[in-house]
């Protein structure tokens, strides 16, 4: 967010408030600055009444995100905030300084992601959001939209765009080949390069295998629910309320298989639980309670979890000179250690998921009989 002088901020807030219905009482509210906007409340001591969000993104992308949020809220999803429209009936206000929109605020606390019970709760919130997944453009077309990471051609269908997302993964893996051949040919000069050369064959094979499984799982996209995904799964985008987890913003989004969000969530927060298999199972159970998993999604989940994404990140950071070699060597060593725990957890999850699958099939068979 751009730093603005206080006077300028006050003027801006006043102008934005004036665009909303007076019944909301925004004029008399005090504003407390937060990272991505302001909390508006009648009394500074009391709970905030509204949140005014500031976004610096393509307004068209914000429009789509807010339409999605409004739609799922209308369908009864309690895990997103209610959007308040302007007097002119717009979901957001477009200004030079950025895009602004107003939501209701709920009392709560930031979630403690290192606690065992937080991850299943977040997974449940995510599933609730995806349960009412909504494609706001008729015919599944995003006219003139740019898929994250790709300068997507005009008039691409969502299926095709989801395919591009997969292509991005394959490209990541292919990029790893260049440094490997370079360091193998010219000799590794530091710990990071040595660790890289030593572990590349295994990690590359692991990545290839994961991609093959992802392709097999989603070869027929009809079997793989594809839609809007919440791109920002950082803890700061979640809010712990008495009723459960609330997702604060949906404006960071991308397209892809819905299950990839659960995979990302597990990859982000399960390391904090040392890849504990019970926490992993519990998280999947909570997600599935709200949004059942198809066999292809189970296959996708396991494959995506195994994809060595951070290996690519460290390599990229090293090649770009963003981090020093000793720091990255330590990180890579740490990641390789983590993978041994991840493997154990994935082996357990695989067995558990397929055993359950078989049990369900047996149950269905019995019911038919």
């Amino acid at each position, binding site marked *: 967010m751009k730093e603005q002088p206080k006077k300028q901020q006050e003027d801006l807030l006043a102008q934005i408030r004036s665009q909303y219905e007076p019944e909301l009482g925004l004029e008399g509210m005090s504003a407390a600055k937060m990272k991505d906007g302001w909390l508006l409340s009648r009394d500074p001591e009391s709970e905030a009444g509204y949140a005014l969000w500031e976004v610096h993104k393509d307004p068209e992308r914000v429009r789509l995100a807010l339409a999605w949020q409004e739609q799922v809220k209308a369908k009864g999803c309690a895990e997103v905030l209610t959007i308040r429209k302007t007097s002119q009936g717009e979901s957001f206000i477009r200004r030079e300084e950025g895009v602004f929109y107003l939501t209701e605020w709920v009392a709560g606390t930031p979630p403690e*992601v290192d606690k065992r019970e937080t991850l299943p709760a977040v997974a449940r919130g995510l599933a609730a959001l995806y349960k009412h997944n909504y494609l706001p453009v008729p015919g599944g077309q995003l006219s003139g939209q740019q898929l*994250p*990471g*790709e300068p997507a051609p005009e008039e691409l269908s969502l299926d095709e765009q989801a395919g591009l997302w997969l292509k*991005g*993964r394959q490209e*990541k893996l292919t*990029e790893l080949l*260049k*440094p490997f051949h*370079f360091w193998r040919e*010219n*000799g*590794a*000069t*530091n*710990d990071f*390069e*040595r*660790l890289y*050369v*030593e*572990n590349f064959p295994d990690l590359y094979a692991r990545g290839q295998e994961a991609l093959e499984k992802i392709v097999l799982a989603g070869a027929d996209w009809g079997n793989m629910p594809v839609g809007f995904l919440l*791109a*920002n*799964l*950082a*803890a700061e985008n979640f809010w712990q309320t008495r009723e459960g987890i609330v997702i604060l913003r949906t404006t960071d989004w*991308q397209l892809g298989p819905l299950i990839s969000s659960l995979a*990302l969530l597990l*990859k*982000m*927060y399960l*390391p*904090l639980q*040392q890849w504990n298999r019970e926490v992993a199972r519990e998280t999947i159970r909570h997600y599935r309670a709200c949004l059942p998993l198809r066999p292809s999604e189970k296959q996708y989940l396991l494959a995506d979890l195994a994809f060595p*994404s*951070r290996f*690519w*990140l460290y390599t*990229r950071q090293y*090649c*770009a*000179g963003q981090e*020093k*070699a*000793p720091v990255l*060597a*330590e*990180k890579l*060593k*740490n*990641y*390789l*250690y*983590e993978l*041994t*725990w991840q493997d154990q957890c994935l082996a357990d999850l695989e067995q558990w998921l397929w055993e359950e699958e078989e049990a369900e099939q047996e149950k269905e068979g019995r019911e038919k009989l």
Partner: protein
Amino acid sequence: MMRGLERLEAGPEKLLCPEKHSFPWQVLAAEGESWLILRWKEKVADRPIRQLKQVVLEDFCGELTAEKESAQLFCGQIRLKVDYEENGPDQLTFSAEQAWREELMVEERSAVEKGEENSLLAQLWRRQAEVTEKSLFPSLLLNGNELPKDSFLPLGEKDTEEKKEATGAAGAKERTKGEETVGTEEGAEVGKTTGAEKETGAEKTKGARTWKVQAPWRCWVQECAGRIKPVCLKIHGAQVGLYTLLLEVVIKLGEDKEESSDRPPKPQAEPGAELPSAFRLTKEPGKLWTSVRENKLLLRMEDDAPAEVLGVAVERAFPCFSYDTQEQKLVWEYLRRLSVIYVSAREGGARFGIASHLEKEKALLENGAEALLPVALAAEREKGELTPVYEQTFLYSEKERFCLAMELEHESEERSAPGAWGKDAGGEELSKREAPPRCKPCARWLKKANGSREKQRMTVITIKV
């Protein structure tokens, strides 16, 4: 007879380029001494290595196996053992504080910085490697004097020692044999590295493992003056990855100093009096020209940081003579490669390295104003010294003695070739030998016809002119 020798090119700072570490051996040969670097790298562990405990030189031997002119070939064997510990399955603790942020970064990067990412990766090839002197992983660098003395015995002497032991007490004999049997059972094949072997007893539970390496080695030593003795100079063992170990050994094949000290010292000769063997044929004034040149070079190593220099070698190649009519001097051009074998200060990878500087040299030789091609030219280097000046920069000083022969005592077709410079010149022996008798025309053919099989049926060859 001394004459001046000019050096035309002498840059202020010469850059030493480290050579690529080659496996399983790398050789640096100088006059009278050679260095042999033996290297092995193997992914030995199933689980990440926790600790490198020790490196043991179990056996080292070598002997002279062949001699050709002034060069000697040495062959031997080396056996090393590395003790290390693997991590247990529950000992791999990791920090997960940054995991969520980094996983998110992967997704964000893929979302917004695609174009930039490609250009950054393209910079990889232009990027200077970021080298640090400290490593995450442990390593052990052992000097020769830290190793057991008996392992330096040459092959023959070692055999004698073992025989002596065998004739001694029965218990000692059995013990020795027993140890040898263990070695054979462990599958230590010559030239191959044995895999990680599990130890027995309490150590097994701790994850203690052993990696054994046994390999033959061979190395030529050129221009040997005295008795050459192979010495295991240094050993370096290091962990170079989570599962990989590296072993390096530097063997020096040089003059046996102990034996040299037993012998009476050579009387100090006048400069130019002791000539290279190639010029012993002409000692008459006016026919032989010798000169001593002192070289002082500032050497800089940019891509590595040497902690210790083990030796220096100089090689010359592609000599080319011409005559400068204006200066009335003989012009001698050649390629000169100066190589340094050193121990790197940088931990983590291979630490024994060779760095070289190759350049074209040109010298003007005073040869009595004769516009003639010399019949031979030899250059000898006296021991060079490398003194550290400041970080990564050294002052190299040496003395070179050049001998130029303009005439031969007994001219022959073979010896007049200019290619006979240096060590190839036949020298005294050739001059003593009488020229072989010339054969009669067609004698070659007639001799063939007189072979044992052809005795019974004689063939008469008629040549029409």
